[in-house]
């Protein structure tokens, strides 16, 4: 009995079409629009030109990219420092505790992220919890101005993206064969050495996929910069939002999105080159 291998394709063609129209379609449209020209008032003229890309070269916008990059880098590094041990420790917990920790990690994830960020406003404001605490511990005399500042945005990013890092490290640490570590120890490696040569190496794919999963979104999460950073444009995402909603310069926003897309694609290619992996660790919650 030989069935044509592609027999199923015709049946699910509409689904492919859906994917193409709603996933690839918008991307191609953005690409096309980035070469168009914005009308003076509102709307677009379809005349091929590179003005939008030239405009990105303006030092001001280059600086936005730079700042956005820096911010993403800061929050990613912090995320690694805090999230790696968390994911690692979580994987080492006894089975039952592990489940609890997992639920503990996922629960806030289900609460709307804007609601959670709102909680930070309460904590960080001038007369908020943090300043109150620091003052009563006599660590400061004058309240710190954290809300609407750079650190506030970093905290917000860290907070929103932390589960991604923790989960990807966790999923690769879970798979780790601990007998390898024991073997290394038996062969005379110090604890530290065993960690760096065995454990760390083997969980590196998880860490790297965590880096991708936290770094890339950080460039676009404009609402964090908006709510905790006080409307300053520090992210490429904020710039895109500004151009879409107020500036009414859609082609320029499209060009920014294309550049962002290229940058992130390069990062993912680099990641694949380093790890030889096709899929990111932890994306499917496996």
């Amino acid at each position, binding site marked *: 009995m030989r069935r044509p291998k592609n027999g199923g394709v015709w049946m699910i063609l509409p689904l492919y079409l859906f994917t193409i129209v709603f996933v690839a379609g918008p991307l191609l449209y953005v690409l096309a629009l980035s070469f168009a020209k914005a009308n003076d008032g509102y709307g677009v003229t379809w005349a091929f030109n590179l003005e939008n890309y030239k405009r990105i070269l303006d030092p001001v916008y280059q600086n936005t990219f730079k700042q956005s990059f820096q911010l993403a880098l800061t929050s990613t590094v912090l995320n690694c420092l805090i999230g790696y041990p968390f994911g690692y420790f979580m994987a080492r917990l006894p089975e039952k505790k592990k489940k609890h920790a997992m639920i503990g990690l996922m629960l806030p994830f289900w609460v709307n992220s804007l609601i959670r960020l709102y909680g930070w406003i309460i904590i960080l404001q001038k007369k908020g919890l943090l300043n109150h605490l620091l003052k009563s511990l006599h660590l400061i005399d004058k309240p710190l101005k954290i809300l609407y500042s750079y650190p506030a945005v970093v905290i917000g990013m860290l907070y929103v993206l932390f589960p991604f890092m923790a989960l990807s490290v966790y999923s690769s640490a879970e798979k780790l064969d601990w007998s390898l570590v024991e073997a290394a120890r038996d062969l005379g490696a110090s604890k530290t050495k065993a960690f760096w040569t065995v454990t760390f190496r083997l969980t590196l794919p998880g860490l790297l996929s965590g880096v991708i999963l936290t770094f890339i979104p950080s460039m676009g999460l404009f609402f964090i910069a908006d709510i905790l950073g006080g409307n300053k444009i520090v992210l490429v995402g904020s710039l895109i939002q500004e151009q879409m909603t107020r*500036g009414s310069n859609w082609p320029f926003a499209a060009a920014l999105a294309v550049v962002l897309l290229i940058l992130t694609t390069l990062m993912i290619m680099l990641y694949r080159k380093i790890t030889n992996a096709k899929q990111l660790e932890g994306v499917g919650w496996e």
Partner: protein
Amino acid sequence: MKKKSFFTRFYVVICLAFFYLPILVTMIFSFNSSKSLTNFTGFSLRWYEELLNNVEVYKAVYVSLSIAILATVISTVLGTITAIGLSRSRKVVRELLLNVNNFPILNPEIVTAIGLMLLFSSIGMRKGYTTMLLAHIAFCTPYVITSVYPKVRSLDPNLANAAMDLGATPYQALTKVILPMIKEGVFAGALLAFTMSFDDFVISYFVSGNGVKNISIVVYNMTKRINPTINALSTIVIVVIILVLLAANIVPHLRKKSLNRNHRRNTVIAVVLVAALCTLMIRMGITANGKHVLKVYNAGEYMDLSLLEQFEEEYNCTVVYETFESNEMMYTKLAAGETYDVLIPSDYMIERLIKEDYLQYLDWDLIPNKKNLMEDVVNKRYDPGNRYSCPYFWGTVGILYDTTVVDPEDLDDGWELLRNPKYNGDLYMYDSERDSFMIALKALGYSMNTTDFDEIDAAYEWLIEQRDTMAPIYAGDDVIDNMISGNKALAVVYSGDASYIISENEDLDYLTPSQGTNVWYDAMVITRDCSETDLAHAFINFMISEESALSNTAEVGYTPTVSSAFEEMKESDYAGISSYVPQIENPKNEIFGYQEPKVKQRYAELWTKVKAQ
């Protein structure tokens, strides 16, 4: 070894504390008896009561839940079938599709968001529930495929064929053989889809419109002001989620232990059931059937919302009320094809809307309360003879300052006070291009309606220098609460906000700079596309009735256009507050005028640069 395990647990607990602190704080303050988010003054349930009366939140919960359920179900079906199909298609097709699929997962959401928004607007789809649902399906499906595909791959490809050889129909082969083997992946995908959809902000923000908002959008609009109803809402959300998780984990325990393994499935089923139940209940709660609908678009924090309820009752209609952050934002939405009946923009924007043919004439015969209007506010240059617009509030722009911090001598500097390094880091500017350029131009002695590019560039330099020396915060409505709680010493504000803020914090006072300022008028207009012209006129008439105007100004603090309300409040609630009586005599004052597109473009670009630093 024991010590280490203690440390491990300690670390995990500390991290979880970081995680739960904001949520916990939010929950605690939901029971606060006062509006403050810094002092807990006593236990009360008033914010829950207010939440129950807030139809907007109700509707948002309904939208969030129903979209999450529909998107989860549809994208799970779509994604599963696609994943199965993929495993049977040619390698080229497969690789291509998988790569395309990974794009939305791996790229910043905002790229997907504007892509979808542009797609919808290019095919002329009206933004609203449908576009939001389609967008959610579009971004959830790739996640389902990612979770299901590896499971399908691990199956023996001959399995389905074997089943069919044994006499199963293709449908049976799918449901009896393949699906049971990949169900773990399917449920994981469904759970992920639900979480993503329910939590989504960025994509919904761009693709939704016409009054359709999910929880995220509503919260985003509310975060600018202290609003403990958000706390109440989030407490309820958290409690419901905890209950669902408990149910998913405990119910199987109560039944037979053998079912324990399927806890992910139970989670999904519990989530969907509870969500469906809530949705139904809320749906029943919203009763907006068959009534006339009036869509009103106003600036944020600019109306006593109880007036809307009163109007709805009186005219047996539903008011869909949306707010914008700036006139420019309103214009963009309008130009992008959203439809509204009544708008409340500022003078210069009205002039532009008239020029670009967005408005229709008012029928003043339908607005008998016209007699209540003060003479000072009608017949201005933006709309001579008030053919299109009915004045709503008016005032000036000035500086709100903390009298306990700011040296009285510095006040003579007028706008230059905003560049006094003494107050570095202690300043709010408005996140509005026209207001900010107005300040710079006035400080330099130019007209705020200048079209001279040299003058505009000079103003730009002024703003850049201010930004670099003063580190101002470009804020919106958040200024109000922050100034009330004394967070900064100086703020650029509209006179109406100043009146409200000063009435709450007596340390503050309002300065109308001697170099001249913007005298502005906001007015109600009816759009050309308005489908409810009678109701729209009734609404305008209602808003300038003596009673409405009085409660409106009492609530928001802006200077009314109705004389009786103005006279009364001047002597009572707002007595002695200088900003309540706009000082408009200075000959250097101006009203904003219409800007040619070229000039407008210039301002917009420079303002983005100021903010982008």
